């Protein structure tokens, strides 16, 4: 399809009764009153979602807060390779690696902190991870909190979900 030119109609000149505005104002008042009455009678017409109690259904590809995946035995799937921390444009992932007790696995994250206040929710960490250990599919934002420290999510919080 070629790029078409859309003809936008010029506003037509107002007729005399319209230019007096009075009738039009009364019509407008009718519209607003209609909305109000219908909203009082039928609460479904209201678009507001009562947030903490009711939550909006997020689209499946929505990048929400992170979670760390677990292996079948419950240990973190992450191998502390630092790929995500390197890819992160906001430099908000802090990883401290340790030697894993499991002989089949080389390293595991002793600490894995994400500073949610600095995260820009770009999803680079998810792309970078070689073993699908980090995902952003929780379908939820960072909940608000009252100190900055509480918003640095540690490995325990991240593994929870």
């Amino acid at each position, binding site marked *: 399809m070629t790029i078409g030119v859309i003809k936008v109609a010029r506003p037509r000149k107002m007729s005399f009764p319209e230019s007096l505005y009075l009738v039009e*104002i009364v019509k*407008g008042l009718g519209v*607003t*009153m209609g*909305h109000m009455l219908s*909203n009082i009678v039928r609460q479904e017409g*209201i678009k507001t979602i009562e947030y903490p109690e009711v939550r909006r259904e997020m689209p499946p590809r929505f990048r929400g807060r992170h979670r760390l995946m677990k292996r079948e035995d419950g240990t973190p799937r992450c191998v502390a390779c630092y790929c995500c921390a390197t890819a992160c444009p906001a430099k908000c992932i802090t990883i401290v690696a340790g030697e894993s007790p499991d002989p089949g696995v080389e390293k595991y994250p002793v600490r894995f902190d994400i500073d949610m206040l600095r995260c820009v929710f770009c999803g680079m960490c998810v792309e970078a991870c070689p073993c699908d250990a980090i995902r952003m599919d929780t379908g939820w934002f960072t909940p608000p909190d009252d100190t900055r420290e509480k918003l640095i999510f540690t490995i325990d919080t991240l593994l929870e979900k």
Partner: protein
Amino acid sequence: MTGPLFDIAVAVARIAVFFAFCFGLVVVMTWVERKGAAYIQDRRGPNRADIFGIRAWGLFHPLADALKFLFKEDFIPDNAHRLFYQMAPMFSLAPAILGIAVIPFGPDVTVMGRRIALQIADLNVGILYLFAVSGMTVYGVVLAGWASGSKYPLLGGLRSSAQMLSYEVSMGLSLIGIFMVFESVRMSQIVTGQGGLLFGVLPKWGVFVQPLGFILFLVAQYAEANRTPFDLPEGESELVAGYHTEYASFKFSMFMMAEYLHMVVGAAVVATLFFGGWQFPYLGDAGFLLPGGSTVAVPPALVLLLRIGAFVSKVLFFAWLYVWIRWTIPRLRYDQVMRLGWKVMLPLSLLNIFATGLILLLLNK
């Protein structure tokens, strides 16, 4: 009770009751404004504040607001002129409430063998007093704008004083027709004058004898009260919040209260001058006198109640009209405001006086 003591008691009681009515209505109107705006815009509006878990459709929000304003820091900007900055909210609140003094809330009642007017002061200059008081409101705005020592309030104050000056003229002129028809400027006489019937069917209300005057007055009043569509003095897209940008805490809430008092008193004025005040349609002193000639007797106590009820419901309706208009009509541009004031309203109100005079002359011949 002896004579003078009784008079003083009556005067104090009247002032207390009418002021309480106004301030109570102010509180309710802040809630109506927020809730009405929400429902008009398909939102829910305030509904969270609760007392013991009772939310009552957000009715406790005005209370919560008041508490919040009381406990906020009372802040004076460095650049502000300290004295004038503190005086401005008072200058704006006082004239807003003074107008209620000449509004009759009901017909005269007889208590303990005495006639008592349900009106704080029945001045023989009634409406002129209203003009005098409403002319004072501009000082609060101007002073706030000037004393804040910052540019947005200054611009807001300038806009508002220019706007108020322009619309005061047509506001005054639009009421001349009412004086001419009812042959008085005394509020009580204007209300009694509206008791009759027009062509034997319509109540002889100001709006039916002065339709053009009514529209002009309503528009001028909205402009005077700085309400949408004339709320340019606080146009938030270009002036932050206009003249009260630099105000916080209780001083800010005084400006808000002044705005809502304007609405309430303005509604009372419109109801009194153009909608018969406390007149209930077709209700005489003894009962209903229907246009067909039939009568229904009503006991005097009920007549009184109906009349006061009629007044209160008219006031409520016009107070709601302020809110309704605000959430329906967008704000005008400044040059449009000035054009409307000087080039449309002023000639029309002069025309209205002329036409009213002509008709009265022809009718009296």
